[in-house]
């Protein structure tokens, strides 16, 4: 197992170097001079220009610039945002809990509905439930989530007035930030109505972000269950006289969940892509919205740093999923 982890980790090093190369050249590919871009429309004197070129190291050869950039990355220095003048690392991790909270809620929503739906669909194969659940899953899987968000806003915020349209909590509430997770912080604050407000702000974004994972998980659970239900050990369990519920819930589901867990892990990239759209529509102050805003503000250091940090998170999660999978499946562990 140790060798397996080492092998996976060693694969990550060239990927990380590549990711930072992509982010580095991304800024260099932009049309226009980076210093003039920073100076904006006010213009800049030739002396100041030369000084800035030197300060940012733009007068060095490209490979040297990259080595400096990469060394900075290794020291945790991801650059400074142009618009807020704050270090990108700090800015990213101030906003990250918001995205994490939303993503966790979306995954819980997707698993809580998707796994039972998939199991029932597999057990009652070809029943009306199976057909309608799988048809719904396919619709969910094909859903343009930015439109789905607008529809939910029209119905639940506009027509029914049940849920707020944007933000994480009503502006009425002020309390210290403890964990960065609004649900926990509002609960800890003890203010009446704060938790309810935070929860009601979460509902629509959670549904929107969770829709595609829900569809994927339901389909995956169903096909994994169908495969497992045909195995000999299930027949044995039935023959032993165990209750059908026990056979399904304990013997079958435990084995069927292995591929499903991998699927959930691999949804991280999808979740991040979804977070970009969901956060933009619901004005959710997370990193998805921050990235889009940075792109529109032409805050290129922020975009660059954000790209590297998000890629690092995706890589880390994929590594954990790989390791979990290797842990439960020796076949993968010993593969070269």
């Amino acid at each position, binding site marked *: 197992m140790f060798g397996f982890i080492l092998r996976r980790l060693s*694969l990550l090093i*060239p*990927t990380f170097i*590549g*990711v930072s*190369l*992509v982010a580095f050249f*991304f800024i260099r*590919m*932009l049309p226009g001079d980076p210093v003039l871009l920073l100076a904006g429309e006010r213009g800049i004197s030739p002396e100041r220009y030369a000084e800035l070129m030197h300060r940012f190291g733009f007068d060095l050869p490209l490979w040297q610039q990259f080595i400096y950039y990469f060394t900075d990355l290794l020291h945790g220095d991801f650059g400074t945002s142009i618009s807020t003048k704050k270090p990108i690392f700090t800015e990213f991790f101030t906003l990250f809990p918001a995205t994490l909270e939303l993503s966790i809620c979306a995954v819980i929503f997707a698993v809580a509905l998707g796994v039972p739906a998939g199991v029932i669909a597999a057990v009652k194969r070809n029943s009306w439930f199976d057909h309608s659940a799988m*048809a719904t899953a*396919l*619709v969910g*899987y*094909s*859903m*343009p989530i*930015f*439109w*789905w968000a*607008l*529809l939910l*806003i*029209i119905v639940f915020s*506009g027509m029914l007035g049940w849920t707020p349209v944007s933000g994480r909590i009503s502006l009425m509430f002020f309390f210290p930030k403890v964990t960065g997770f609004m649900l926990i912080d509002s609960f800890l604050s003890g203010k009446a109505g704060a938790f309810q407000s935070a929860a009601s702000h979460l509902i629509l974004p959670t549904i929107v972000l969770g829709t595609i994972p829900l569809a994927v998980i339901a389909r995956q659970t169903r*096909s994994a269950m*169908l*495969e497992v239900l045909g195995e000999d050990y299930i027949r044995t369990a039935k023959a032993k006289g165990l209750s059908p519920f026990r056979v399904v819930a304990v013997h079958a589901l435990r084995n069927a969940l292995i591929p499903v867990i991998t699927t959930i892990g691999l949804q991280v*990239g*999808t979740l*991040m*892509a979804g977070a*970009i*759209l969901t956060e*933009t529509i619901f004005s959710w102050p997370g990193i998805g919205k921050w*990235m*889009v805003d940075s*792109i*529109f503000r032409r805050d290129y250091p922020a*975009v660059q740093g954000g*790209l590297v940090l*998000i*890629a690092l998170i*995706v*890589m880390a999660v994929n590594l954990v999923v790989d390791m979990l999978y290797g842990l439960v499946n020796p076949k993968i562990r010993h593969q070269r």
Partner: protein
Amino acid sequence: MTAVSASVRPGRLKEFWRYFSENHGAVAGLVLFVALVIVALAAPVFAPFNPDQQFRDALLMPPLTEGSEGLFLLGTDALGRDMLSRLIFGARFSLFIGVVVVSVSLIGGVIIGMFAGFFRGWVDTVIMRIMDIILAFPSLLLALTLVAVLGPGLTNAMIAIAIVAQPHYVRLTRAAVFSERNRDYVTAARVSGAGPFWLMFVTILPNCMAPLIVQAALSFSGAILDAAALGFLGMGAQPPTPEWGTMLAEAREFITRAWWVVTFPGLAILITVLAINLMGDGLRDALDPKLKRS
């Protein structure tokens, strides 16, 4: 599709159709898709109005409004343009995006994956590490930043989405080549003097097509969704192009006043993507022997 139909014996094509037509959803998807293609190709015939024509006396009219110029079946948008006509012309963009993105990423991915799988060694290592790098970024985010660098617009959006979609083809082709390259028929072809390119693209490739076709269907719908998302974020096709995602972005501010300008473009995206995914499911069942009759 055509590459396979040409190289497959008629018996196998018949067998494919038998499996495919067993799946009613897949057939429904196919019918819907063909209908969409016809509508897109003959858009000027089906559209009641010019998609860019503004009727200044009929701004934000609800569906089924009888205007001075004729019936606005699905209403008009904020500039008085007929929604139905814009949606019909929009089908052209979505299908065009799908075709271009799938062809570019499929051809590029197959060639790269073929080299990786056939030559192995350092060629394979370098190629796969580059693909890992692309896959480390969430696809929409990478496409979004690429478009930011290249400049917003439909062409750049398609380039970005094709780059992002490519690694999947590379991986599939490489895996298929790995399992095929030591088979007897490949050795036989090599012994009889076939060069590496002949071996790669004439001998091996036709036997790796099944997973590639399924992936092509999946990324066709993915490309349409991503292009619409880019359009929605203002980074794809630019107004006044009647692209569905761009139309949604323009409609956002009228969300509480005019439900139809928001509802119909999204519905068009959903129906198109759904039709392609239905077809994709049918293709997978029919082409993937492992999943057959599961």
